[in-house]
């Protein structure tokens, strides 16, 4: 069984009387160790798809098997636990706690995993070293550059050894040099540790890092191959 198996997932948002079908019968399988890029214009459903993949949201219908566990019917507490143990998020806006230092940000998932203080500090510091920030452990986010902040965020995503790393436009707020650095980190992690990596992006340069690309349009997957063309604009 693949790491991720999505079966006929549909997501419908209701606004009073109106219904909005954001995802329609999406089925996809993702194997362990894949490096996948998700593309598509805004409103195509790719963010909703990411939210479901990341267990932040549940599908209206359909099944989602993560590590052979059907998480599509999980409640808030169970989803939180899955997110804590199996998923690492990296966001476009970094989403670090501004009043916490780098190491405190990185150890956050471990707090909720119930890891004792000493151990989690150690692991958080190790993780920061892995992304090249061993010297910035006690810096606050605002003392770090955008690229450095994103690296802290990556360290945080990785600290609890997740099965998948989910990055939503991770280079969207970065200059091209930092973007490249960040993508190199993802690539390295994927190649060295076999970490399943899923990145949402609309930049072809970034998408080209992926060995597989999925393209969304109007709530459906319109392309799933090694390279999808970027010209299918609406």
């Amino acid at each position, binding site marked *: 069984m693949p790491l991720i198996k999505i079966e006929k997932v549909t997501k419908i948002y209701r606004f009073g009387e109106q219904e909005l079908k954001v995802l329609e019968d999406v089925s996809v399988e993702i194997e362990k160790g894949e490096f996948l890029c998700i593309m598509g214009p805004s409103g195509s459903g790719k963010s909703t798809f990411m939210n479901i993949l990341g267990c932040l949201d549940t599908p209206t219908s359909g099944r989602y098997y993560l590590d052979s566990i059907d998480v599509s019917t999980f409640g808030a507490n169970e989803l939180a636990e899955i997110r804590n143990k199996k998923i690492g998020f990296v966001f476009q806006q970094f*989403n670090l*706690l501004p*009043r916490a230092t780098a190491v405190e940000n990185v150890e956050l998932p471990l707090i909720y995993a119930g890891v004792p203080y000493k151990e989690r500090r150690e692991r958080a510091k190790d993780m920061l070293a892995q992304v090249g920030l061993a010297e910035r452990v006690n810096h606050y986010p605002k003392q770090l550059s955008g690229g450095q902040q994103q690296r802290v965020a990556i360290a945080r995503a990785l600290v*609890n050894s997740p099965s998948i790393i989910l990055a939503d436009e991770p280079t969207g707020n970065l200059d091209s040099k930092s973007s490249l650095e960040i993508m190199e980190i993802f690539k390295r992690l994927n190649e060295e540790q076999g970490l399943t990596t899923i990145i949402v992006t609309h930049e072809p340069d970034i998408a080209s890092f992926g060995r597989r690309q999925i393209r969304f349009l109007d709530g459906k997957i319109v392309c799933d191959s090694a390279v999808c063309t970027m010209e299918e604009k609406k």
Partner: protein
Amino acid sequence: MISISSIINIALRSLIVNKMRTFLAILGIIIGVGAVVTMVAVGSGASKKISQQIASIGSNLILILPGATTQGGLRMGHGTQQTLTFSDAEAIAKECPAVVSVAPVISGTAQVVFGNQNWSTGIMGTTPDMVIVREWEVVSGRFINEQDVRSGTKVAVIGQTVAEKLFGELEPIGKVIRIKKIPFEVVGLLEKKGQTFTGQDQDDIIYVPISTAQRTLFGQTLPGRVRLIYAKAADLESIQQATEQIRTLLRQRHRIGPNQEDDFTVMDLTQMLKAAEESTKTMSILLGAIASVSLLVGGIGIMNIMLVSVTERTREIGIRMAVGAKPKDIRMQFLIEALFLTTIGGLFGLLLGIAGSLIVSSIMQWPISISVFSALIAFVFSAFVGVFFGFYPAYKASILNPIEALRYE
């Protein structure tokens, strides 16, 4: 499972960040708890004061005053006619089962001289039972005894104020004082009683045997008449009964017809004070209730601050949820923040309350009465306020949708 110490740590850190806001939120609770502690202390101090007064006049005390007379259509006040006699007192003692002891009094004011000191004070001629009726201890020497009353000896038992005015530092027992120029030997010194609830100094007094007072000090036109009679009922419950028995007996003895007014008045002092005590209690409950309102307002302040804080930190909540915080973890975090605010407020409020009660009791000269119990109650109540008013904001935070929370600007 997240550890409690981690949650407490998270909560404390976010409070430290917003120092001014945290302080203002706490201030409401400080004032609230302070007010409750002070008001409860003031209330119980006041009723303690009244209890002391009840104890000082003697418990279950009944006062029998001679009646009002009517002369040519003019109704005179109490005591205008001396209708009570020494034998009335004896009869009450003998025939009223609810009365434990009786002490008749003949009184007047006289100038008292010792050496080069002199002092004008109240002189009371009475019987040995006076000390039982008034529950008054003799600190040195003795009180008037039966022998004194029978033979009319010239002995005096003095109150603390008189002792101080006449003798200063000297030992009064065995000294001879002159009351209306007649020499009396001081045989006893009474313990200090303090003021009555009307502000009269009870220690400014000299007791002499009733017979001596009658014969030598206040030579009366009608012998055997007394100014008033003190009686003591067996206990609080039998005061009513005793009053009735005394009234019936005196009406009989004074041959008062069924349609005639009493020529005496029976007053129940304990009851009057009990009533005063009751009203003080009511007052202190009222004060406490008003103070509780301020604690409630403080609690609402906490809730307000916490709601603002939740809204402001929506994104933080989203981040925490994304990395695996469960709704109950978020709820705990905000609940502990609120609880911490109110407990710290409660602690400082307690100090404020203690200071407040000390000030009030020193101004009013009330006994200080800060009970550990009321302090504990106020403290626990403030913690409860924290949980109560912290719960809604914490709940609101915990049900946030992580996707929307992450998107929140």
